[in-house]
């Protein structure tokens, strides 16, 4: 079964990577790379992407003539999606375990971030 793991940043918490020391940043990036590599080696990784910061994000909707109407930018976003993984695993429990691992990524001073990861199951075919 497939799950999407979404890493959300809320408020002015610990994930303000721009203010981290070089060493902390390197440790964090190293962890994330290794994490993705291990998921891939398990044959569990379907996709993983980090997203650009919301500073340049726009919200788009269709106008009266279906033309794109854009809104934004939102430099003061309180909550935004940092990145996501899609994994294909045996059970929901395994997805939670993977999410917990991601949540414990090292932050400032090497302490686990404990950042919140939203786990959502990807829709699939019905059972026969």
């Amino acid at each position: 079964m497939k799950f999407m793991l979404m890493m959300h940043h809320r408020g002015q918490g610990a994930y303000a990577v721009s203010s981290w020391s070089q060493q902390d940043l390197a440790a964090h990036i190293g962890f994330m790379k290794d994490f993705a590599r291990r998921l891939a080696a398990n044959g569990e990784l379907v996709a993983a992407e980090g997203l650009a910061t919301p500073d340049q994000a726009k919200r788009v909707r269709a106008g009266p003539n279906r033309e794109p109407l854009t809104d934004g930018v939102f430099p003061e976003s309180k909550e935004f999606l940092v990145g996501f993984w899609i994994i294909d695993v045996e059970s929901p429990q395994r997805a939670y375990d993977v999410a917990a691992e991601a949540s414990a990524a090292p932050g400032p001073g090497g302490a686990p971030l404990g950042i919140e990861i939203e786990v959502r199951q990807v829709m699939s075919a019905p059972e026969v």
Partner: protein
Amino acid sequence: MTSLESQLRALAPRVLGALVRRYRELQGCEDALQEALLAAAQQWPRTGVPPEPRAWLIHVANRKMVDRLRQEAAERQRAEVVASWVPVDEQLALAADEALALERDDSLDLLFLCCQPSLTAASAIALTLRAVGGLTTAEIARAFLVPETTMAQRLSRARQTVQEAGVASEPLTPAERRARLPSVLRVLSLIFSEGWVPSSGEAVHRVDLANEAIRLTRSLRSAMPGEPEVMGLLALMLLTDARRDSRTGPSGELIPLDAQDRTKWNRLQIEEGAALIESAFSQGAVGRFQLQAAIAALHDEASSTESTDWVQIVALYGVLARIDDSPMVALSQAIAVAMVEGPREGLRRLEEMGPRLVGDYRLEAARAHLLERAGEWVEAAAAYRRAAAGTTSVPERDYLVLRAALVEERQPLTRRFASTSPR
């Protein structure tokens, strides 16, 4: 698929089985097999198919294997460090591969090797499709909608697990086979379930896993002809697959059994499945697949929901519940009971099993269905909505939402004509 391609595909697991028996290693043997198949595809159209095609393939694959081992031994200068568990001297000494080719069919042991319980279900499925089914890694990846690299990793992990568990050089004894049969049947039935595709749309470029599962189960059946549960599983697959073209509409929407166009059901498959289940039952040892197949046969052979032999279906679920204590069986039984004794009795049964299935959308879906039949429109719509919120399948969710809307629209109508009893 050309006739040469299908001939090679049928031979592949038997050749691989023979190689694995000698070299007790999967990856190298699979590579050698691929080279031999390629050679055959190039040469046979010119030279004609050799009189002993299987022996030809084994001979060529064995040469490739020996070449590889020689090369590795030379590279490492150490005979004991090779990709195989068999000392290299011994391997190179095995010059004559005629004996290997003339002996029994090894593909059955290969299937048991790939379905061993030490593998996760996903790994066993992938390995079985690759090694026994002869699908490419890319085809398997597409079938499961994962990137090819992911599937390649899963396969290599699976081979490693098999290797660590140890590949026996001796074939399994009949008693060992019987003991390990349930895990093989489980993997085959999971492949079949994964093969669920709507009759149209997105799935055209995917390998048909349901057909693959049927093909593999057929060959298992011819290798173990007397096993009633193998017959039961094959029958269940045929009887379920017979309804494939009528269980979804033009845009992939689910059509429930009672609304399906029964003239579209595959009669040949139904006849074959029904005959299989009959002869399996006559052998005595009744198992879960046989019971499920017998229930499927009763549905398939009825000309309508009303004329279905629900009394017998209830009885069969009763026997099934004794060997399979799963909530799904109890749910299905409650629905069958409702067909015999009315929706109220079915709802009462669901009430009893409620605590086991709290929060399970399937319980809500069954309740919704029975509430609808009982004419409780408001409650039925609410239950359909709860079920829709709980499912992880898009076609199922769409069906349940649609059903909720249908009963809801019906409700004010019946209120207005209170004396008209719902059909």
